[in-house]
């Protein structure tokens, strides 16, 4: 068990982390631009792009990555990004409707200052919670993607265990992934607590 994991954990960790980083970058860029900029055409575009990715199963996104010869972590990014984008957009839109933002605008503050000093602190706890959840989403997506793209990571191991009905291994993997997810979620909670933004 330990030997199996020693080789596989770094593989999954690296490619999930890379995918998550891209997903967050794109998600943040899309969400901020559609809330702050609020151009109707851009909104329609970003909503349909994320809707398209939401309706393609993770397995197929992995296969498409192989067919079109792009790095597989992009598939992870494509799976996680629409969820990040949609949630972030809703949170930000709600924040931007609050009255202190209107007041800040009326005072003539710049958009950047409003964003970092007035909107972000309010939305921070929810964004941190989303960060925790996104780890679990990415790990879930790692099963079909790794299985179909032939990446020797945790997800592929879980898939092989499921096909071979190796239950002890499968249960151990599930517990391991649950622990990682819980750690990510509590990590997000702790950061929110330390920085004084209790949800």
């Amino acid at each position, binding site marked *: 068990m330990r030997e199996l994991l020693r080789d596989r954990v770094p593989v999954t960790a690296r490619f999930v982390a890379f995918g998550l980083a891209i997903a967050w970058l794109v998600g943040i860029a899309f969400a901020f631009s559609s809330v702050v900029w609020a151009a109707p055409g851009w909104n329609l575009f970003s909503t349909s792009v994320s*809707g*398209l990715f*939401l*309706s*393609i*199963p*993770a*397995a*197929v996104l992995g*296969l498409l990555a*192989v*067919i079109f010869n792009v790095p597989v972590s992009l598939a992870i990014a494509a799976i996680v990004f629409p969820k990040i984008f949609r949630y972030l957009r809703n949170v930000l839109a709600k924040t931007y409707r609050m009255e202190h933002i209107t007041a800040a605008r009326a005072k003539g503050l710049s958009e950047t200052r409003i964003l970092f000093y007035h909107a972000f602190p309010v939305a921070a706890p929810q964004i941190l919670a989303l960060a925790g959840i996104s780890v*679990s989403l990415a*790990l*879930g*997506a790692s*099963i*079909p993607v790794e*299985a*179909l793209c032939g990446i020797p990571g945790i997800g592929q191991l*879980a*898939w092989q*265990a*499921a*096909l071979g*009905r190796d*239950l002890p291994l*499968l*249960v151990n*993997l*599930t517990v391991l*992934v*649950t622990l990682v*997810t*819980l750690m990510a*979620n509590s990590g997000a909670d702790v950061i929110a607590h330390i920085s004084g933004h209790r949800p």
Partner: protein
Amino acid sequence: MKASRTIAWALLMAVTALSLGAQGIAPAGYARQFRDSPNASPSRLHWLGTDELGRDRFARIVYGTRISLLLAPAAALVTTLFATFIGGLAGYLGGTWSRLAMGFTDLFLSLPWLFLLITVRALLPLNVSPLTSVVITFLVLGLLGWAAAARVLCATARSLDHSDFLLQARASGISRFRTFLVHVVPNFKPVLFAQFWISIPVFIIAEANLGALGLGVAEPLPSLGSLLRELQEMVTLRPEPWRFLPLAVLIVVISSFPVLLKKEEVRA
């Protein structure tokens, strides 16, 4: 926004009608093999060609869509029933029950969904008859998907806690269980409908993932998931556009569902 809803309805209706009329429309049964022409290109005989075993692709898509479109709502029904009883009852009873049930729900939610799904699927026999495998797959989906809906229902039940009609029911001496069934559950209707509607595309996608991994519906029965397995061969073969059709059907079906829900219903 109205136009997009009409389009979504029309698309969903068209796909449903096509799949329900599978016997009349499909040129052959889903398992019939044309052994002289495996991997054929589209022709008058086979509109979308045949797969590697010589089965008509169009027929398989039509039958596969039918299986996914009929059984995902069934699984969603199981899920909403579970959520009503776990979440709704917990919210209605309140106190220790509520904390216990919601703790359990939170525990369930923190398990990674796909890992849980393949673990439970692997627990159950894989080499069963195709029909049993369909039922098992969607039953597992239905039994594992209730947690998120249960939380919503618990919150809804709690919001009814201090309503006058429940006070009156209690004053009239109606038993707690009857009050729950007759006076509380009907108030869940809009929430239940939204949860039911949201779960359907989730289950179709989950089945597609399981199917693509070979853990879903068994051959020769087609489903949208097992049809996607064909895409795997394209990694080595040259991509032929008609092989993407199951994916296109899937995208149309999945993206129609959220459009049909009103914004308020999603938030409820």
